[in-house]
């Protein structure tokens, strides 16, 4: 929780719960969590333990059935408010990439910028930069179907970065990728982390990836059972 003399946490859950099927399934149970600016956090736990639900609630893709969610010190509620925050300040990366099949690589990235950057030339320039930076500049005119998994995830990362967000939220970003490609994608995120003060929250099953993060939050059956900082890491 926020101390008076600190800058507010970037994302915060206070006693958040989420149940489905009229309470028969409790995906998240009274979870409280604070993510500070610039943190690099891993969320781990067995499948079905509520990791995705936690992330979704943290970014407003899902409303908690109980508890409160804050972003940058302000309580946020409602789809539209959350959408505006995500547009400007949060970038998403998912296991299944979630690109739009009828749009090209460049258009998929630009789609995130349509309402944020009004000038088409500025959007095009930003898209070109990002794709080059992620090593898929030559793929700009292709459709997602024509790309490999690793390439698709790079497009998704480019899209997540398009509006220069303060936080990247990645839900098992390497879950559909082979080991080599996974290493590359994680290296990309870590490079990003090194060169900016971006906050990264990453859900992963991979203990190697989790071990590289500054902090590891563990979930079991919807409960946060551990929240550990790696030795020598300052908040």
């Amino acid at each position: 929780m926020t101390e008076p003399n600190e800058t507010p946490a970037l994302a915060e859950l206070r006693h958040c719960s989420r149940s489905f099927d009229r309470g028969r399934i409790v995906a998240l149970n009274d979870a409280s969590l604070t993510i500070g600016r610039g943190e690099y956090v891993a969320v781990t736990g067995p499948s079905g333990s509520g990791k995705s639900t936690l992330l979704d609630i943290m970014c407003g893709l899902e409303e908690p059935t109980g508890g409160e969610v804050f972003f940058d010190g302000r309580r946020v509620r409602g789809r539209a408010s959350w959408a505006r925050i995500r547009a400007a300040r949060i970038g998403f990366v998912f296991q299944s990439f979630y690109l739009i099949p009828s749009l090209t690589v460049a258009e998929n990235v630009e789609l995130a910028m349509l309402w944020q950057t009004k000038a088409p030339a500025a959007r095009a320039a930003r898209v070109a930069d990002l794709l080059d930076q992620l090593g898929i500049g030559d793929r700009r005119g292709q459709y997602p179907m024509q790309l490999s998994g690793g390439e698709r995830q790079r497009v998704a990362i480019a899209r997540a970065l398009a509006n220069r967000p303060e936080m990247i939220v990645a839900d098992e970003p390497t879950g559909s990728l082979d080991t080599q490609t996974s290493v590359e994608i994680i290296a990309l995120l870590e490079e990003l982390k090194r060169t900016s003060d971006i906050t990264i929250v990453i859900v992963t099953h991979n203990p190697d990836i989790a071990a590289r993060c500054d902090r590891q939050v563990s979930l079991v059956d919807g409960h946060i059972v551990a929240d550990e900082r790696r030795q020598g890491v300052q908040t």
Partner: protein
Amino acid sequence: MNLLTLPWRNIAAQKVRSTLTVLGIAVAVGAFIALTGLTRGMQYSFDHGLGDIGADYVVSQRNTYSLTSSSVSEDIGPKLAAVPGVAAVSGVVLSVTEVDNEANIFVTGWPDDSFLWQSLKLASGRPPQGDREVVLGQSVARALGKGVGDTISMQYEDFRISGLAVSTSVFNQNIAVTRLAVLQDMLGRPSAVSLYQVRLERPFTPERAEEIRAGLAAVSPLIDVSNSEEFAGNMQFEKTMDAVAKVVSLLMILASSILVANTLLMSVSERGQEFGILAAIGWTPARVRMLVVAEGVMMCVLGSVIGIGLGVFAMYVVSWMRIFAGLLEPYLTTAIVAQAVGWVLLVGPLSALYPAWRVTRIPPSAAIRGQR
């Protein structure tokens, strides 16, 4: 890329479905334009046909159903002529008759001393004389393939074409003119006319014209006095036609909008994940809904453009059919087109509202992971 890129790709991705929907809208717009155009065309030619022949007022049977069903006693003629300010009156008999067993045309009879003859401009030949002669409008003559000296049959009687008439008006172009007595005899309507055409003494002011109109109306409780412009529009028959055309075409537009709604519903239910993705990358629900509406509007715009072409084509085809020669004339105005497109663009977006609402009803997390 712009805001229309995504809806356009979605329309293009489902070619058959989109084409069928667009055609549905096109047929509705086309029907609206053709039906409205043809009824308006008829009205227009009535109005202007009457105006062209140099009359200021038309006296008809009170609340008559149609132009041809109006009947006014010939006793009224002299009384109308006696109204101060009236220069001349002319009884007119009007009927629709079958010509050569294939086309229906207007036939009118004028008294020998009528001032109306002065406005009849002949391209060739002379006015009708005797018992079995007619002057034919040039376009009817062309449609029937007849010229001066040829014979046409009307009401099972043969008539010789004595002349061909020129006129700027469709109505006069498409009419056969004969002597009043001949037509009265042929229709079995002696001592009655369909209406009286009234010409005022010149010059006259609008106020004076109104006074004279009141004078004319006072002649008998059984008559209506109208000026030539409002005359046709006042008839029950025209009002009925107008209403039928409107109702039919609006129903078709309504049906086509249900088609749009259905297509959009199918389209959005297949793309639930896409809307989840849009939400995840920060599109507000209103903006996502706007995409769905834009998709509907794009189909409506496409359908309208094709429909305008279709409507104009249908209108010409109908007016070319010989059975309608002289009765139906295409009449296309920007107002009619604007009305058709206006209705489609009003109803189309409305029909997109429900599919649009469906899209943002479920939370983004469920949409993106394919749950409902």
